[in-house]
């Protein structure tokens, strides 16, 4: 599904109408570009970026969506604003923690400006697009080559208990084999 403005808008409308499933394609559409922005532009660590994305989506479903004005149809611009506010909060907390006002002030100001620009343009910065296309294509090929049963097992998750579900681990192993077939062996760091 193309993550166009109107599609995002539709998903937000559905989410507002209590269709909790709409959060899945929203995350699919936006979490990767949010991550690129958080790490690439605002110098957040992986953990901070991950936290920012989770916080943004939780903030949206935890009341934020009720403020979404359907008539305005903001879509991705509205999402970026919510995400931007979370990033700014994290940067502020970081600033307080590190007491490094000079460098983080600049980042904070930059984040605020970027978010205004992003909201006005409502377009994804091409500079934030996927860097490792080859790798992503291999992941995609591996995913597509998995059987439906294996894909479902992975999407169901690990499952309860110490060892989780057997079919989950079998599917993960199969995915790794397929991925390495398409991409080559991965060197462990």
């Amino acid at each position, binding site marked *: 599904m193309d993550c166009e403005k109107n599609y995002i808008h539709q998903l937000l409308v559905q989410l507002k109408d209590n269709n909790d499933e709409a959060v899945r394609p929203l995350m699919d559409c936006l979490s990767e570009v949010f991550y690129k922005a958080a790490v690439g532009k605002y110098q957040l660590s*992986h953990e901070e970026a*991950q936290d920012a994305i989770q916080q943004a989506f939780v903030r949206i479903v935890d009341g934020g969506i009720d403020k979404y004005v359907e008539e305005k149809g903001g879509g991705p611009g509205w999402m970026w604003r919510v995400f931007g506010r979370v990033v700014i909060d994290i940067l502020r907390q970081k600033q307080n923690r590190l007491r490094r006002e000079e460098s983080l002030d600049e980042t904070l100001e930059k984040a605020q400006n970027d978010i205004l620009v992003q909201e006005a343009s409502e377009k994804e910065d091409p500079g934030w697009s996927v860097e490792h296309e080859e790798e992503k294509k291999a992941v995609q090929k591996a995913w597509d080559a998995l059987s439906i049963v294996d894909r479902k097992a992975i999407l169901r998750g690990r499952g309860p208990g110490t060892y989780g579900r057997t079919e989950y681990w079998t599917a993960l192993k199969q995915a790794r084999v397929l991925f390495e077939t398409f991409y080559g062996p991965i060197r462990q760091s």
Partner: protein
Amino acid sequence: MDAQAAARAKAHVREMMENAAAFTEALGLPREKMFTVLSVMYKDTVVAAQPATVTSTDALKNRIFQLSEEYIGTKMKAQLPSFHTLWERIKTLPVEALDMGMQQRAPSAGLGFAGSQSLMPVVSLISWAVINQSSLTASTPEKAKEAIVKEAESRGFPRSQSYAFALYLQSRLGNS
């Protein structure tokens, strides 16, 4: 959004992130790739029809009323009081009558008050869209748009207004 739906949505967010992180690790990729992996895993996610989708006649009528009131209140504001009067007169009719019975030109003849003539085709079109919501949402956005435009034109709306209707109804019924 109600509390239960919000709790379910939060669970989806957590589950997606956990699954993506685990799958990234299983592939041997660095953790920084987890959102790339997530976008692959959930690329084909299809949103099921709105759980609150109308199922009973009363629910269908409520939806028709809500959408009609919203559309008229936005685009034909001066006629909102007339719409409320009209609705009081037609709300007991079967939903099929709101759709099928009103398709002829000058459909409101006999309702007996000014303004109803321009409102009835609006209610009729919205009724048709609500009744056919499941097939509209199952179609591609382009096909759904064509179907709405065709229905609107068959009720005497000009082409530009028919497209405006398509835009509005697709945004409300979940296919655009």
